[in-house]
């Protein structure tokens, strides 16, 4: 049974999601809170007791992204789904980079909510064509800039992290899958076209999510180091 924490400031919506989680015998609602502070407190006290985080991004005392990062730091096994009204690509991409694995629409049916959570715990990781397109474009620009990034990295003695960045660039198969998703094909159709299982496709996407999260952290650390906000000796630890 997966233990779920809901963070949503709209009480009606919070109640709806709580009820939706409660309807599934495989899910257990740990708590439902309305603020960043309350959510962080939950992770501080019972980090290892939360498997799933359902979180809204616009909270009264901060951004849900902050909670996602806090949760991933405290309990890397905890998987986050963002509660979104529109699932627009800016917010979704920011969530993925913070460590979320997907999102649930606010207008989703109660059964669909539980289903999406369970699919995520089962290894599924949905991605929209728009996000796929954005990720492809992001990785292409990263591939172009890696040599210069490498030089910068050497100059500030973080060669190992630069190598990690190179390794995390898309594999040809991942790129192929992303291109088909960007063209509108479903996982099943891609699996048929490429003679793969749907599970393999999902694995590729999940791995991609991990890379996005790693890159997001590395970019933040590199930027902070360039700006002199972090000492260089802490760089390796921070980037990991």
């Amino acid at each position, binding site marked *: 049974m997966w233990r779920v924490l809901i963070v949503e400031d709209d009480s009606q919506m919070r109640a709806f999601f709580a009820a939706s989680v409660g309807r599934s015998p495989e899910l257990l609602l740990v708590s439902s809170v309305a603020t960043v502070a309350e959510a962080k407190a939950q992770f501080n006290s019972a980090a290892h007791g939360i498997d799933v985080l359902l979180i809204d991004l616009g909270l009264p005392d901060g951004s849900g992204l902050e909670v996602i990062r806090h949760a991933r730091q405290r309990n890397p096994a905890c998987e986050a789904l963002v509660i979104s009204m529109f699932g627009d690509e800016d917010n979704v991409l920011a969530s993925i980079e913070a460590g979320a694995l997907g999102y649930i629409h606010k207008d989703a049916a109660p059964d669909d909510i539980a289903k999406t959570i369970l699919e995520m715990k089962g290894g599924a990781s949905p991605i*929209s064509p728009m996000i796929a397109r954005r990720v492809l474009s992001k990785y292409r620009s990263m591939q172009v800039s890696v040599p210069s990034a490498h030089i910068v990295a050497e100059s500030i003695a973080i060669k190992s992290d630069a190598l990690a960045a190179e390794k995390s660039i898309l594999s040809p198969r991942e790129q192929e899958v992303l291109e088909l998703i960007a063209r509108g094909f479903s996982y099943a159709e891609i699996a048929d076209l490429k003679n793969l299982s749907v599970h393999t496709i999902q694995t590729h996407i999940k791995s991609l999510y991990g890379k996005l999260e790693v890159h997001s952290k590395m970019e933040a650390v590199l930027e902070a180091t360039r700006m002199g906000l972090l000492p260089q000796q802490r760089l390796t630890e921070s980037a990991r």
Partner: protein
Amino acid sequence: MRSQSHRRGVPAWLGLGLVWAVPSAAAVLTLSQARAVVTVDGKSISKEVQLPYHWDRANPGQQGGAVFDIDFDLPQAHGGVWGIYLPRLGNAYELWLNGVKLQAHGEMVQQQGDTSVYNGADFGRVPRYITVDGGHMQSSNHLRIHIRADVGRRGGLAPVVIGPQTEVFPLYERDYRWRVTGSVAVVAFCFVVGLTALALWTTDAGVPDSTRSGRDPLFFFVAVAQLFWAVYVGDVLVEAPLLPWPWWGVVQVIALDVWGGSMALACMELTDWQSNTWVVRLRQGILWLMVMAPAASLWALSQGQPLVLTSWYVAYGGTLLVFILGFLWRAFGHANAEQRILAAAALVNIVVALRDIYVFRFDASYGANTWLRYSSVLFGLALGHVALMRFRATSAQLRGLLGTLATRVSEKEIALGETYARLEVLARQQERTAERGRILRNMHDGVGSHISSAMRQLQGSGSSDPATRDEVLLTLRDALDQLKLSIDSIHLVPGDVTALLANLRYRLGPRFMAMDIELHWDVDLLPVCKNLDAGAMNELQFMLFEAFSNVLQHARAHALRVEGHVIRLDGAERVFVRVVDDGCGFDPSIGQRKGLATMRERATAIGAQLRIRSEPGQSTVEIQLDV
């Protein structure tokens, strides 16, 4: 004063000379009396002469030779080094002391009737100095000087100065410095001023929009005057003529001619007399006389007619004098500073020229030097100064014009920048207006229309009716989907129809699945349609949403096929998007729903071709787009 007479072993036809020695200082003798044997046309005449002996005055228009014998006694011991200083002699000469040949320059007449030696190199231009060892000096000495004299080349012999080197050499050195070194300095100065003026003239582009649009002739006249004067003065340094006689003499006359004429023309440029009839005639006269100089000089020198050249000199000098006097009157009366400076220089030069004419034509002093060569420097300086001032003024004027031009360009740039900024603001305003219009239309046709439909559905029947509830739910879901698509459209890349179709599928796919409609996706990677901007993409998205929505709401279909292909049609590539369902069909001509009419309007707006075909079992919405 002592006089002595000595016979020496010299050719009999030359005869003997009686010499009077005049001691000018305790140890220095100036010998100014001689017995001369003058030979012209093979006839020799022996006579006593007083030095200086000016050949051209004694034998006008004739060439020939003379031997001067001078005896002199030395009153005391004569050891050490002695020197003989000859201020002028020539044109060619030989010099013996006590029967010893001390120096010779140029060819002498060796036999009667030999005229080929005349008019060659002229060695009479510079003073001469000969060092004599005291051992050669005796109590009674005999000096013999043999000269060859050409016509009109200032041949002859000046008084000879003899004495200890310490006394005589400084006299020679002073004379040499005055005549030769001074001439070199004048030549160098003239070249510098002349070449500078020439550079100013060649680089002068004039001043646009002023009275003078071409090059300033003042610079040209100054350049020509100075360069020709350099040639004239430099002649003293040239012993061997660069051209055969009489051409080199002609060159010298032309140099003097052009110098004088150019100076006058330069002065005219400084006045506002150009339109004055009197000055115009004077100018023409000067130009005519300038042109006549080569012919007059050639005639005079080649035919032995010095009067021709003298006449030309008188006419030319007189014309120039008239002009210069007029210029002086004008300058000192009511002219500007430039003219006064030049007038002062001209006055000095006139005075000096008159002095030179007197000395060279009337005075007995044969070895004297011309002063005009030095006083002309004043004229050169004055003209150079005027030319430089004028050039500075022209440059300042040009700088002013360039400054004005730069200011105007800068003002135009600013104005252009402001125009661009205004246009940009207008473009942004138009863009905002268009965007606002698009959003309003989306709100009206999409969310607004669906919400009002939902309200009508609720008002039309009881909210508890399950059929009505489902219908309202469907309508509201449509509204929300359209809202999501509107938000997605913000990020759509203009022209990327593949991404637009993919996004539609992503948004509406779950609803097809929920309604058990099997979806067949057959979309190629389509090329970018250049004509589809952000607004057109939005229109296309709504057209396709309408097509999908119709299938979801009305078709009762089991399968939906979405195709996206590129087809070459009439030589051009076109993108075809088809939405095909197997539902109950409808009559497209009736326009049973407002949605179909809106689709047609949107297709027209973006330049797409829309075809709708429907029959029970197959309805097709086809959209063709230009690539």
